[in-house]
């Protein structure tokens, strides 16, 4: 487990983002710079104050530094996979805590919609070494793997399509309150069932929305963050686990065992329990991932996540308001970054109609072959 002494020692000082949607003519770097300048404005810093930088999905940190004239002491680049957003924030927190840098910018830029990014077909690399081995059978795409995981969950626990539909319907209701969300028209259960299947049992509403956009976060020490423009949002705890060997085939336990470990570590580091949480931001590349995250982290008993979401627990006003922005399913697939952005805005009370009242603790969870969780707080301890 990360050292508990690091609880609340690093803070998010600023966040920035582009609009999300179709933004033709913008490279990932352009989108990242747009978001970065917004984040700098948010905390009252300038590019020259940045001495740490990690770019994500932006392929080349060197070009990015040329384009921004940033000359960091600490620099890195992380792969354009959604599971890397939480990991990137964790690396940044460690870099600040160890003094590798004082002010680190995390910059994400994604032109996937304009560039025609595809997550299935001959370019698919999901599943590591084995990904392409199954093309002769027509098997491809992370969506298909999640469809089969959900079919297995249905088989074992009797989870229903109607229960799953509540994930996307609930997040769409949240998006209706978020002017930044790409899809804001409510989805009824009739709409859900009438919509086309992509890989059955998953409908199009169970898939995230590929769009263009960028997000940036500025992290610094808690002391330094207190002198900046906005109220700091403290990183109370973080944890990571992986289940990478054999990950071309869905895991037997829906990542339950490693997720349980992530959940207990992040809670212990942050000094919190589940009942303390004001909200959750759960990585929703596909709606079943939300069910697996809820069970794995222990928000509901094994096999009961379907009933848990159908009972309204994830809605604003529910026991665990989740993805209050609309998440990847309705706001935009910004690969985890926009969910972390939303956590920061909620803790600052900046979310308008969708504000969770008195929000003071929010957990980010990403379930994938690489699992991460972060607990953010409006107080350091």
């Amino acid at each position, binding site marked *: 487990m990360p050292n508990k002494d690091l609880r609340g020692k690093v803070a998010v000082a600023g966040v920035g983002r582009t609009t999300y949607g179709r933004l033709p003519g913008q490279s990932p770097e352009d989108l990242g710079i747009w978001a970065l300048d917004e984040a700098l404005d948010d905390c009252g810093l300038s590019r020259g104050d940045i001495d740490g930088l990690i770019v994500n999905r932006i392929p080349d940190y060197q070009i990015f530094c040329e384009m921004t004239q940033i000359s960091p002491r600490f620099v890195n680049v992380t792969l354009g996979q959604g599971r890397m957003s939480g990991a990137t924030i964790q690396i940044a927190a460690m870099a600040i805590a160890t003094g590798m840098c004082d002010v680190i910018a995390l910059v994400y830029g994604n032109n996937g919609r304009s560039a025609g990014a595809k997550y299935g*077909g001959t370019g698919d690399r999901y599943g590591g070494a084995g990904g392409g081995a199954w093309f002769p059978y027509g098997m491809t795409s992370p969506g298909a793997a999640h469809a089969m995981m959900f079919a297995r969950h249905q088989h074992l626990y009797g989870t229903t399509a109607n229960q799953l539909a509540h994930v996307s319907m609930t997040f769409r209701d949240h998006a209706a309150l978020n002017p930044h969300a790409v899809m804001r028209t409510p989805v009824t259960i009739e709409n859900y069932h009438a919509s086309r299947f992509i890989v059955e049992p998953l409908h199009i509403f169970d898939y995230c929305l590929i769009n263009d956009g960028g997000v940036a976060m500025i992290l610094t020490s808690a002391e330094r963050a207190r002198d900046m423009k906005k109220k700091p949002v403290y990183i109370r705890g973080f944890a990571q686990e992986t289940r990478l060997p054999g990950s071309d085939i869905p895991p037997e336990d829906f990542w339950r065992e490693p997720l349980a470990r992530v959940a207990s570590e992040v809670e212990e580091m942050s000094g919190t329990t589940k009942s303390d949480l004001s909200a959750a931001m759960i990585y929703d590349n596909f709606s079943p991932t939300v069910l697996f995250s809820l069970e794995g982290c222990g928000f509901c008993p094994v096999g009961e996540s379907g009933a848990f979401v159908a009972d309204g627990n994830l809605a604003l006003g529910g026991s665990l308001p989740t993805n209050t922005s609309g998440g990847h399913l309705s706001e935009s697939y910004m690969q985890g970054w926009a969910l972390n952005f939303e956590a920061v805005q909620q803790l600052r009370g900046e979310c308008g109609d969708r504000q969770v009242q008195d929000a003071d603790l929010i957990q980010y969870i990403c379930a994938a072959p690489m699992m991460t969780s972060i607990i953010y707080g409006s107080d350091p301890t």
Partner: protein
Amino acid sequence: MTDYTKPLPHMDEANRPYWQALKEGRVTFLTCASCDQMRVYTFHKCPHCGNEDTKWTELPGTGEIWSLGRFHQVYFEGFREEVPYTVAIVQLDDGPRVYSNIVETDVDDVRIGARVEPVFDPVTEDVTLLKFRVQP
């Protein structure tokens, strides 16, 4: 057979025995000669113990449907005429889980938990794919 338009497997020296066995109607997997762990992918060294010595293990090819997904989206041109088609994950008896297709079976019988047996489908002169049918 030259008009076969679906994706074909990547064949190389390391996995050729697997494909040759399928042509002969046998299901085999590369196996570590030291620790006996089977591997689906022909990595040079055993992922479990690191040993380089290998043998081929023959399996009965029977198993059970572990999960299913029905593709409505066209991801490969060669599958355009077949959508919606079903991909299954099959748990092989005494072996690994593999992705495949269920053939020669009434659609109502294609269910998770159903027992399956191998069907050797010679899609081209060089390639025979391991598919399955639900056992009667």
